[in-house]
């Protein structure tokens, strides 16, 4: 036992100290933070304050066009020609010309720009004008905005899962995300670290250290030590990624003034509040009501999402994730190890990689195409029971709720499958690591299973 522990330590430490490991571990959270912050940053950068000069000959919008955070209005008077000349001499974004017109027939409004006026600016100006015209029409017909907002209805559906006794709120999107995220991580983990096991075995074989090792320890100890050591490397990496991502995202967000946690929603709310602060006209009241309604809506969405998360049985999902994460890795890891033992160099691994990668890829594809759409269908059921596909498929299913017996059966079979593949792998491994210069085929491999060593 102490020998296997020594092997685990070596496999772990040599990998964790590698430059590539350190770089990967540090870089990924930074990239993540960058991806999170960059779009926001780019928007802020491009979103310089736009200043629009307004020549209002209709006098309908006098004092009604309010400056916003990044949109300012400068009223002009005089002729259009004069206004154009004045505009040309400034850096302002555009010149908005409102000709003489009636509120019932708002036509002929024109925007003059130096470049082509951006769609964004155009839409914003349209919105501002439309809203103002609507307001004036409401006033003219005796309605006010506040009354209208009260009438407006907003419906968002709560979906409730009545199975398994209790009522559970459930939001299909959140559920899907939780499951798929787990499945994706498991899929990549098996591949990334399974291949590392294979490479490690090939390295030991080609460097011929293996004969020395096997004179000190049993082949099985060497194989399991490697598998467990590399699993520990993977877990360390994921743990560091989680912690570092959290730190990086928090730090970057703080630096750029973006609230990290519920960022889009909060940003939205903050924007509303700022807009609200700017309202100082007679319409203050109505605007406040409108904003309050919008805020309410945002708050509801946040609560919805939060509630969906809370109702996902987090402990169960996380437990299942850990189980299938390790179970799947161990099941495939030993097979990767056996491949490494059977070949002399990495180029020979192709033919043996196929039967390992195919069930993984199929379960990954099926997770998206079939399981996610029908998490309780026959395909989902069988694929989540069979050990070679269950680590990925069951992970997708778990957040939707899986009967306990199915889960237990799947887990039991996964353990059995792991014991079985490890047995097969160790039989191949003990023969393969001492076999050099021989092209191996499946027939040969199957003979190895029954060799006496």
């Amino acid at each position, binding site marked *: 036992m102490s020998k296997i522990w020594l092997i685990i330590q070596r496999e772990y430490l040599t990998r964790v100290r590698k430059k590539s490991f350190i770089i990967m571990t540090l870089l990924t959270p930074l990239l993540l933070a960058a991806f999170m912050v960059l779009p926001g940053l780019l928007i802020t950068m491009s979103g310089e304050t736009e200043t629009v000069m307004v020549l209002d000959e209709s006098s309908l919008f006098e004092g009604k066009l309010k400056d916003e955070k990044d949109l300012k209005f400068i009223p002009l008077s005089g002729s259009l020609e004069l206004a154009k000349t004045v505009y040309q001499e400034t850096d302002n974004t555009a010149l908005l010309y409102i000709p003489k017109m009636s509120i019932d027939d708002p036509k002929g409004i024109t925007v003059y720009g130096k470049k082509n006026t951006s769609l964004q600016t155009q839409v914003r100006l349209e919105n501002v004008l439309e809203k103002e015209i609507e307001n004036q029409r409401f006033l003219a017909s005796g309605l006010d905005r506040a009354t209208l907002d009260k009438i407006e209805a907003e419906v968002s559906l709560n979906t409730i899962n009545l199975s398994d006794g209790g009522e559970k709120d459930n939001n299909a999107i959140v559920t899907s995300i939780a499951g798929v995220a787990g499945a994706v991580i498991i899929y990549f983990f098996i591949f990334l670290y399974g291949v590392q096991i294979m490479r490690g075995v090939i*390295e*030991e074989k080609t*460097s*011929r250290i293996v004969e*020395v*090792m096997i*004179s*000190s320890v049993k082949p099985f100890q060497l194989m399991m030590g490697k598998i467990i050591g590399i699993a520990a490397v993977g877990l360390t990496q994921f743990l560091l990624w989680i912690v570092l991502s959290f730190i990086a995202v928090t730090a970057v967000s703080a630096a750029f003034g973006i609230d990290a946690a519920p960022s889009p929603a909060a940003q939205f709310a903050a924007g509303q509040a700022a807009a609200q602060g700017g309202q100082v006209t007679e319409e203050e009241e109505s605007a406040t009501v409108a904003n309050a309604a919008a805020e309410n809506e945002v708050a509801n969405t946040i609560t919805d999402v939060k509630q969906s998360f809370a109702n996902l049985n987090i402990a169960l999902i996380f437990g299942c994730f850990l189980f299938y994460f390790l179970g799947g890795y161990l099941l495939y890891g030993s097979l990767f190890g056996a491949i490494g033992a059977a070949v002399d160099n990495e180029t020979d691994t192709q033919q043996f990689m196929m039967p390992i990668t195919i069930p993984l890829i199929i379960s990954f594809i099926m997770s998206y195409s079939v399981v996610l759409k029908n998490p309780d269908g026959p395909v989902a059921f069988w694929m989540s029971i069979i050990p070679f596909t269950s680590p990925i498929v069951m992970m997708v299913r778990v957040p939707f709720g899986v009967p306990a017996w199915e889960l237990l059966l799947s887990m039991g079979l996964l353990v059995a499958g792991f014991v079985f593949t490890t047995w097969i792998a160790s039989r191949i491994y003990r023969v393969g690591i*001492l076999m050099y210069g021989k092209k191996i085929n499946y027939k040969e491999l199957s003979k190895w299973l029954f060799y006496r*060593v």
Partner: protein
Amino acid sequence: MSILKIDGVTKTYANHTALDNVSFEIPKGCIFGLLGPNGAGKTSLIRIITQITGADSGHIYFKGERLKPAHTKDIGYLPEERGLYKKMKVGEQLLYLTQLKGLSKEDAKARIKTWVDRFEIRDWLGKNIEDLSKGMQQKVQFVATVLHEPALIILDEPFSGFDPINANLIKDEILRLRDNGATIIFSTHRMESVEELCDNIALINRAQKVLDGPVKEVKDAYKTDTYQVIGNGKLLITSPDFHVVEQHDNHGIFRAHIRLLNNTSPNDLLRYLIQRVEVHSFVELVPSINDIFIQKVTEKHHV
């Protein structure tokens, strides 16, 4: 007393027999030459002794006990195909391999200290194996083999890859280890090093043990009572007791190989010669291990 007893060991692979009922004993504290042509079964036997593989039938006794996993601690093995972890530092590697033999970290460190000084490789401890020359790697591996001070050391072609200076260093080290009580199994094709180092030998050919025993006894068994005589004069042997195997004359100096027959002694031959010629040199012709090796291996072929 024997440290290792090989008792009727047979090992068959899918299509050939590697060892066929091989039995012999290796006395404690000797340098034991395990000889045989390529493919004779030496490596198979070594792998069974080092518990890398198991025998199909037959047993091996180490210090009187049936060989068991705990014995790996007392055995050091230098395979013919050398290999270490390329990307691991020398010091860590030595520590790792020694700990795997069951030594505590502290003991292993203390041993490494003495051995790196003896081999003058202290400066290499922090280097990766792949940064060392091939000869240096071999030296490190030799140290790794003996670092846990095993009672039985198995060296497969220990001198291959060493320059003469380092080969001498290794040779002295092997002798020193023997003098300190270790038993060394020494598998090689280089017969001159066998003559020089080995106390006992076993010869394996075509999966079977052909002969074994102390080098002197083996040689005695294969000597033919033949003497080489060099002298001055005209040698003409007429006695039926002596048979001239070969004779060369050169400007009055002769050199002859003469075999004793009819239970005569070397003194009889000498007396006979002195009466006729002037004897300059009289030496018994003892077969070299090389001669015996070739004789046994080729004769087996013809059968």
